[in-house]
């Protein structure tokens, strides 16, 4: 078990390093950053000075190593806009993103369990058909458009919920639901399919045979088994939420890392962009890692074998 853990951790580290390379390369792909930072009438001499200041005249590999070396120590440079540590900017906004992602995950899991279990129990009924149509439509809708529609409906037309910003529970609802929307369809399908398999199994038949009442049969005995695939995938879904946060935070003006990065991209504020994306990638990798580890703990069969 320990060996497996270590090897997965190592894999994760490799991924993070690789991610940092990709991020580095992607930011430099256009070539000369100075042209974007300096006013258009800057002289070549000024460009040269700036390039030297930013270390852009060194070979790329050296630049990367410097970047990586500093990054490990937490130094991503200063934001071009705010002149404060880029990492600090990102870290300050990280709790907001995590809060949103966690709420979105909770929302999607609750909905998926509810609809998935009931669709399986009442397989073939109108509820099931409705659920299928709902899932189909849900997958076809872009998340950001769903967010816009929510704003249109709940904020503009009905005036029930605020359209942007972070505040109390009311502010959390629309962004969390929109962000969770991405995964609800897939999760519901997974729960439903797993539940159908479990309900057909011999051990549920045994439990029924000894007189376990119906609701306990479904929500305790069957669900514990059916939830296994879902729970093990929670890490993947959480990672998906992190990915979706960029656009959702922008729509709802949620003060998280996603929105900050998007704004920074437009402002050509590379240190912030690099810090933000790398940080998100680290969490991304960690979430996926958790998936493999979780699998070992949730299913007792594997727990004891390892």
């Amino acid at each position: 078990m320990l060996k497996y853990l270590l090897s997965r951790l190592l894999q994760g580290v490799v991924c993070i390093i690789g991610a940092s390379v990709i991020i580095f390369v992607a930011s430099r792909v256009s070539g000369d950053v100075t042209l974007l930072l300096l006013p258009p009438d800057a002289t070549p001499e000024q460009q040269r000075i700036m390039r030297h200041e930013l270390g852009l005249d060194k070979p790329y590999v050296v630049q990367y190593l410097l970047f990586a070396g500093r990054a490990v120590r937490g130094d991503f440079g200063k934001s071009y806009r705010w002149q404060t540590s880029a990492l600090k900017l990102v870290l300050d906004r990280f709790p907001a993103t995590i809060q949103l992602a966690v709420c979105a995950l909770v929302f999607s899991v609750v909905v998926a369990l509810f609809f998935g279990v009931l669709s399986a129990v009442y397989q073939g009924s109108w509820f099931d058909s409705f659920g299928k149509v709902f899932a189909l439509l849900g997958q076809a809708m872009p998340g950001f458009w769903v967010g816009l529609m929510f704003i249109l409906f709940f904020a503009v037309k009905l005036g029930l919920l605020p359209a942007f910003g972070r505040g109390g529970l009311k502010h959390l609802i629309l962004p969390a639901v929109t962000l969770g929307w991405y995964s609800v369809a897939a999760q519901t399908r997974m729960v439903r399919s797993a539940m159908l398999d479990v309900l057909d199994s011999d051990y549920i038949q045994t439990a029924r045979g000894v007189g376990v009442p119906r609701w306990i049969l479904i929500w305790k005995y069957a669900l514990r088994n059916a939830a296994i695939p879902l729970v093990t995938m929670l890490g993947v879904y959480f990672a998906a939420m992190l990915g979706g946060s960029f656009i959702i935070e922008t729509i709802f003006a949620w003060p998280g890392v996603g929105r900050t990065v998007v704004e920074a991209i437009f402002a050509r504020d590379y240190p912030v962009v690099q810090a933000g994306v790398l940080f998100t990638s680290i969490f991304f990798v960690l979430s996926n890692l958790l998936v493999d580890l979780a699998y070992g703990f949730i299913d007792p069969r594997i727990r004891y074998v390892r």
Partner: protein
Amino acid sequence: MPDVNHSPLLSVEDLKTYLFLRRGVVKAVDGVSFQLREKETIGIVGESGSGKSMTCLSILRLIPAPAGRIVAGRILLDGVDVLGLDEKKMSAEYRGRRISMISQDPLTSLNPVFSIGDQVGGPFRYHGLKKGRKGIREAVVDVLGRVKIPSPAQRLKAYPHQFSGGMRQRVVAAMAIACGPRLLIADEPTSALDVTIQIQMLQLLEDIQRETRVGLILITHDLGVAAYICQRIAVMYAGRIVEFADVRTIYKRPSHPYTQALLNSVPRLGEKKKRLFSIEGQPPDLLTPPTGCAFWPRCERKLEICRREYPPQTPIDGEGYVSCWLYK
């Protein structure tokens, strides 16, 4: 305890269970009647698809709905018609409490993510027989001991996959007898076990019956197993009982051609036959069963009338009967 209660514990009267599929109707159980007394063991023998499992699922009312439905008949347990009860009562007072089942495959009969203490505690908990963690725990340890699981108290937190097949079958048996049922149905309890373990399982069933006076229905396709433990045997074919007699009659003087064919197909030690006997033909397609007696296409002694009408029951020695035109 007052002995010899001769009124039947279980009385199945003309039970009919049909499966309504898209392709047509399958008459899985088509008019089955028999009686079972306390402390008695009846074996139901037949090929796959003969209706033996369906009969017992009908008694427990666990037919897969919505396709399956019990369309006719009565099932009287201690005089109460089980088919007339509402589901809530059935689940709370009968299933697992008065009627129990030991299912076939021990490897898949237990929930892999719950400990055996949890699962065996289920029947106690849900029938309100024991209250409180301590009470249930003691009851679980007690019943596990009765099925001869070694050191039950230490193994309460263990999971099913940590047990062998034979042990798992005992755990399933423990769940079944936990609440002291009046009727116990064992659906092929030995089919998935090694031969040496099979005997142990059968002995366990006998012990349980001796202690609790439970009526036992044993479903099997293995004639040897049936002979070991049953007093009477019902031979089923295509949803009906074709012969019902005490075990000695079945083996020494089988009446129905199907029973005879079954016995012939079991090779005996010491016998030298050139070819193994097997019954010609295929089991009937239950969607379009043959008219008249369902066995006539494969019967070596068929008469003209067999094709037209289903034979009535003819009594044979003891309390048995056979459904065959040869004896009318």
